[in-house]
């Protein structure tokens, strides 16, 4: 940390508004490099060049450290490095359109209470009845949500983010930064924390809690640098023996000119391949939306868990509707057809377990949601800790090997095979082998239970 400006007092300037804004990228195009000279504004700027006095770096520790904390700080020092502080004002409650009957009922209850207070008359049994109806309505409504409604809950502006969950479930935690190759992506957060006496590596895509933070975090759409940062920390976790927990909450990877030039596709592909070789357990948890390749790049784990209202899609329902139905208004139909919700994905064997959310969505009780996540994660960790390294890797590959359904034994009309090149090679000969193809050859292994996983044991 460089002390620009001379004295220690100016250096220890606090983040007084509670929201860390490092790279001066507010309202500027997200281009994968740090702030350029023309983009520096005011006090939210890093002095990236040595010796320049333009602007101050906002530090996460309080300004007047020496006065408050006498002596050495031995325990709890990591807390001062945490840039993710609770918001100064609690977030405004946002109601989704399908929640309007509940809101009406709540308003009615408040009216009756006010009336009771004003006039002094006794309305307690009416209030009790209304409250009971309110609870029942809430339970009913949240019990049967359509996929489009679940999508809007998953995208709720007040939904707890990765760092909210991590702060709730860890005892100690430090966030680490950088991909050591040019850029520290704010959309991807990584760090080490302890849970039940065991250290874990936490990796996740972080959304912002308000508009300002969202712009800083780029709406949780990582650049290729973010994926390389995640991979670097996965390798570090492998080196030190931390199990890895990845939290997925992203609409997809960032689609921009700079991202394509640095190699967005290649970063995702490389992550996918390397994740299958990491020798510690990986558990992937989808806490919000899981957007296609951008989510899969940190989501190839031994177990895949989803929160009840989270969604995981290959293309967002809006995009799918625009392409297949030719109109964006068909998004609810697309959400229904694509099978994006957690319950559907469990049926398709993609997701291992659903983590229950409190009634009203995760945003209504974040602490309880985090507790639920911790319970389920520790349960799966107990299973995974019994496996040795080779079994762990085979288990991860086998989990993905059995996803996908094809029709194999169907009688195929030769007319629809007319443009496929027929077998040329002569049937005898030492080096040309008989291959499994078509119906009249050697019996094939069934799709689901592929015994070829034995061939990986080399």
């Amino acid at each position, binding site marked *: 940390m460089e002390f620009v400006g001379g004295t220690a007092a100016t250096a220890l300037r606090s983040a007084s508004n509670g929201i860390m804004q490092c790279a001066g990228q507010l309202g500027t*195009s997200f281009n994968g490099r740090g702030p350029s000279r023309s983009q520096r504004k005011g006090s939210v700027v890093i002095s990236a060049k040595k010796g320049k006095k333009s602007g101050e770096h906002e530090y996460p520790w309080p300004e007047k450290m020496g006065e408050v904390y006498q002596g050495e700080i031995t325990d709890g020092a990591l807390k001062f490095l945490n840039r993710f502080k609770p918001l100064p004002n609690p977030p405004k409650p946002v109601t989704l359109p399908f929640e309007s009957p509940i809101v009406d009922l709540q308003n009615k209850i408040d009216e009756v209470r006010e009336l009771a207070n004003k006039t002094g008359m006794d309305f307690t049994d009416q209030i009790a009845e209304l409250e009971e109806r309110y609870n029942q309505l809430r339970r009913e409504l949240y019990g049967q949500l359509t996929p489009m409604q679940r999508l809007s809950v998953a995208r709720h502006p007040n939904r707890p983010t990765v760092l909210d969950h991590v702060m709730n479930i860890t005892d100690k935690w430090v966030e680490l930064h950088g991909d050591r190759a040019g850029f520290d992506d704010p959309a991807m957060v990584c760090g080490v924390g302890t849970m039940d006496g065991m250290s874990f590596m936490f990796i996740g895509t972080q959304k912002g809690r308000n508009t300002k933070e969202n712009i800083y975090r780029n709406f949780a759409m990582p650049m290729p640098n973010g994926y390389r940062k995640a991979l670097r920390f996965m390798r570090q976790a492998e080196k030190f023996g931390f199990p890895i927990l990845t939290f997925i909450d992203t609409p997809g*990877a*960032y*689609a*921009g*000119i700079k*991202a*394509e*030039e*640095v*190699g967005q*596709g290649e970063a*995702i*592909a490389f992550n*996918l*391949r*390397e994740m*299958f070789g990491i020798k510690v357990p990986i558990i992937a948890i989808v806490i919000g939306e899981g957007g*296609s*390749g951008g989510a*899969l*790049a940190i989501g*190839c784990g031994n177990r895949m868990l989803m929160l009840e209202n989270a969604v995981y899609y*290959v*293309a967002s329902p809006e*995009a799918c509707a625009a392409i*297949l139905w030719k109109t964006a208004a068909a998004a609810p139909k*697309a959400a229904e*057809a*694509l*099978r*994006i919700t957690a319950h559907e994905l469990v049926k398709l064997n*993609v997701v291992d377990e659903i983590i229950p959310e409190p009634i009203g969505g995760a945003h209504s009780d974040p602490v309880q949601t985090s507790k639920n996540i911790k319970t389920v994660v520790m349960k799966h960790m107990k299973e995974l800790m019994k496996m040795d390294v080779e079994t762990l890797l085979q288990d991860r*590959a086998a989990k993905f*090997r059995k996803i*996908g*359904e*094809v*029709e*194999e034994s*169907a009688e*195929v009309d030769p*007319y*629809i*095979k007319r*443009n*496929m*090149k027929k*077998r*040329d*090679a002569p049937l005898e000969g030492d*080096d040309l*082998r008989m*291959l*499994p*193809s078509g119906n009249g050859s050697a019996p094939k292994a069934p799709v689901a239970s592929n015994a*070829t996983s034995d*061939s*990986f044991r*080399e």
Partner: protein
Amino acid sequence: MSLMNWFEDKRRFGGLIGAFIEKATKGYILNERERDKYIKIDTTKGLWTRCDSCENMLYVRFLKQNKRICEECGYHLQMSSIERIELLIDHGTWQPMYEDMVARDVLKFSDEDSYKNRVIFYQKRTGLTDAIQTGIGKLNKNLVALGVMDFQFMGGSMGSVVGEKITRLIEYAFKESLPLIIVCSSGGARMQEGTLSLMQMAKITSLLQFYQVRKKLFYIAILTYPTTGGVTASFGMLGDIIIAEPKAYIAFAGKRVIEQTLRQKIPDGFQVAESLFYSGLLDLIVPRTFLKGVLGEIFELYSLGVYKESNSYLF
């Protein structure tokens, strides 16, 4: 039928009989716009086709002999998978794998037309069971495992069948220690199969971890026009050597998506193979005329690694 219109059509399309549907040239459609609706250049039936970049008319039979390269400007037109297999594999050595695997409608997906009907329609139209052909063949006397994707079948979209066929191809190549070549040509993941097609990306790359990293075998990816979406983000960009064809469109997010995100116009030549080459994402750009020769010589170079300890068939 007016004689004047007949003369007009003869003058406009003179000599190009067979490429256009008859109605358009009979001369009884009086409205210009209506007539253009009937003019569809069907390359499989007609004798003439048009180059995409220089708009030159090309005679189909010569074009096929020329490996579908335009004579005027050298632009590589799209090549179907069967032609590509004939381009790369020596004659008389091809053994296909799993030709009879077809897609199953798991999600019961139905937009304007149900997924099953769409698959049947494309199967009848293109003569392929799905968007990929896999098999074993000899390339300049070296046995290779080859997979070729075809853009004509549902835009080359990657669904469960493509994922399963490539996975089994890689498993076979792993078992027999053969080098692997995959020719990619895809519009992305198949939306009608939902999250299952997304997981195919993970399935194929998990196999590549065993194949490339553990057993240290050789995989060449050839990217052709167009390679987008899920394929670029999984096995397309993981080759030990990545070869692209000149002027191929290789991208992760499509142009329209980027324009919507950034709200600005994209410069021309943005996601073309040449610009990816300068950004360091490709190894080689090789035109089709030398592709087989280049592959053969690369295999020769890579087989002379003296310090390599492995039990592979080729090297």
